[in-house]
């Protein structure tokens, strides 16, 4: 299935879908916290990037902080904003760690979005690039950075053009004190890891490096480096305008603000949705029109975990809400497994993809992930050699935690959750009885066992 940037795919919380808000320009430029979209405000009004003029009309001008740099840091801390790239680390802590270093800092906006099941960073940059650029500008000021970069995947040239156009507008208007350099990186799965960005910006390959030092200590040009996901920076832009209290009006005590989610699979309206943090998994799925019969969901993307929808339905789509079931929202990804698809086959394809997407640097990942992908593949096909189930269980334990980055850990987590969630299937497959969907798919000549988008692997050596 190709995963095109479909213009019908963008819903947003609060719109009924059949019309535009009555008052498109709120009087005080402050989007209502609970009912109105924030980042996605007015996305349905245009099918291209908001111009600087439209952006300023929507949210007001880039605020100047009278209180100096500590003022914004305080606001971000009080907002309890967490990183939206997947790890969910407190943004203020990261910013303060960079600001506390003596050398002048570097800000890097991470728009790589290597997660194939996520579309939100692409959507955000395509519709509201100025929100992200505002965030870069403000974050640079707050941490004392003299240099800023935005990293985008090389495979999305049109997006690079959109961001460059937006930067051009800002230069003409003269609103930024810092100039943002746009970079196009190879689009491997591990290339969005923050150490990969640093390594690439320093002239190396877009592969993770051994830590420490972490980028906040010594990153781009050996300077302390703040690396934030583009959505995180967009939230910073709104917090700087409307304050921490406003930000926290959406969300829960545990998770504040709104978040972008990508919902695909067995839903009638796949796309990017902005929801209040803490919205239940089931409600997010309903927003996209969950189809009848879907029973399982992949939460958090290819590094995520499979679950029965019934078991996570009422759980908040947040780190804290999902921790008890061993899941994490990741970059806000939900994939509902269609009733006719085979979860093991999907998991096997993801595992194969992740195995090919390693940096090929560390032994346990280089050999372990293909081994697990083989095990899962044998199981999915119902053609086991030996006992792939117990072999996998042993390998899960051996591989985890032994790579330079967390690529092997994420792949293992996904595979283990598939075996757990599709347990009945797994045992049947292991006894050479693959599930019905594998047969029906073949009978009808449809590609029913290929639901998730798996990008084509890059040519060998294309890391620079």
């Amino acid at each position, binding site marked *: 299935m190709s995963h095109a940037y479909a213009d019908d795919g963008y819903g947003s919380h609060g719109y009924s879908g059949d019309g535009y808000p009555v008052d498109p320009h709120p009087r005080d430029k402050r989007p209502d916290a609970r009912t109105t979209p924030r980042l996605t405000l007015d996305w349905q009004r245009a099918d291209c990037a908001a111009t600087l003029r439209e952006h300023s009309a929507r949210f007001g001008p880039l605020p100047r902080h009278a209180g100096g740099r500590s003022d914004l840091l305080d606001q971000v801390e009080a907002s309890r904003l967490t990183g939206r790239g997947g790890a969910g680390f407190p943004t203020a802590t990261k910013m303060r*760690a960079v600001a506390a270093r003596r050398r002048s800092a570097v800000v890097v906006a991470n728009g790589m979005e290597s997660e194939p099941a996520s579309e939100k960073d692409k959507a955000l940059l395509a519709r509201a690039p100025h929100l992200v650029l505002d965030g870069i500008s403000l974050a640079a000021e707050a941490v004392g950075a003299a240099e800023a970069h935005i990293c985008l995947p090389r495979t999305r040239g049109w997006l690079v053009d959109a961001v460059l156009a937006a930067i051009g507008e800002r230069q003409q208007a003269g609103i930024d004190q810092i100039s943002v350099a746009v970079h196009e990186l190879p689009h491997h799965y591990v290339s969005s890891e923050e150490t990969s960005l640093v390594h690439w910006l320093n002239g190396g390959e877009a592969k993770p490096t051994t830590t420490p030092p972490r980028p906040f200590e010594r990153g781009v040009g050996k300077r302390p480096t703040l690396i934030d996901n583009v959505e995180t920076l967009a939230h910073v832009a709104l917090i700087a305008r409307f304050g921490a209290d406003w930000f926290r009006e959406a969300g829960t005590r545990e998770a504040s603000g709104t978040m972008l989610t990508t919902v695909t699979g067995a839903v009638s309206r796949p796309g990017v949705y902005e929801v209040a943090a803490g919205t239940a998994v089931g409600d997010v799925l309903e927003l996209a029109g969950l189809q009848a019969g879907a029973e399982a969901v992949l939460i958090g993307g290819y590094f995520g975990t499979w679950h029965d929808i019934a078991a996570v339905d009422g759980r908040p789509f947040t780190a804290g809400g999902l921790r008890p079931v061993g899941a994490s929202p990741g970059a806000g990804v939900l994939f509902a497994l269609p009733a006719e698809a085979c979860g093991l086959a999907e998991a096997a394809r993801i595992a194969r993809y992740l195995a090919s997407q390693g940096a090929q640097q560390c032994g346990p990942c280089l050999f372990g992930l293909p081994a697990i992908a083989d095990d899962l593949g044998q199981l999915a096909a119902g053609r086991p050699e030996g006992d792939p189930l117990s072999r996998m269980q042993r390998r899960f334990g051996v591989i985890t935690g032994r790579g330079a980055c967390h690529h092997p850990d994420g792949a293992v987590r996904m595979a283990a959750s598939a075996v757990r969630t599709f347990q009945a299937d797994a045992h049947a497959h292991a006894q050479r009885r693959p599930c019905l969907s594998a047969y029906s798919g073949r009978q009808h000549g449809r590609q029913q066992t290929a639901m998730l988008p798996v990008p084509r692997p890059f040519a060998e050596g294309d890391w620079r």
Partner: protein
Amino acid sequence: MTMTLQVDPIACTGHGLCADLLPELIELDEWGYPILADSVPPDLVAHARRAVSACPALALRLVRRQHQLVPRHQSSARRARYEGDR
């Protein structure tokens, strides 16, 4: 002071000499890469040093304790999650 062994997983090419020299603390996985014990007891420190200096890839290290990766006041759960950014 507790000593631990660390392997640089990028540098390690799976020669396996370390497991030969220090089987008490190092075993090899099915692909020949070392799996290390958590800490090095004092009576094995000298042997550990020998294994470190024998590594052809200079991938093995003997260090005092794990480096602090993120600011001290973060919980270990936070610290773990910080590493998983994608």
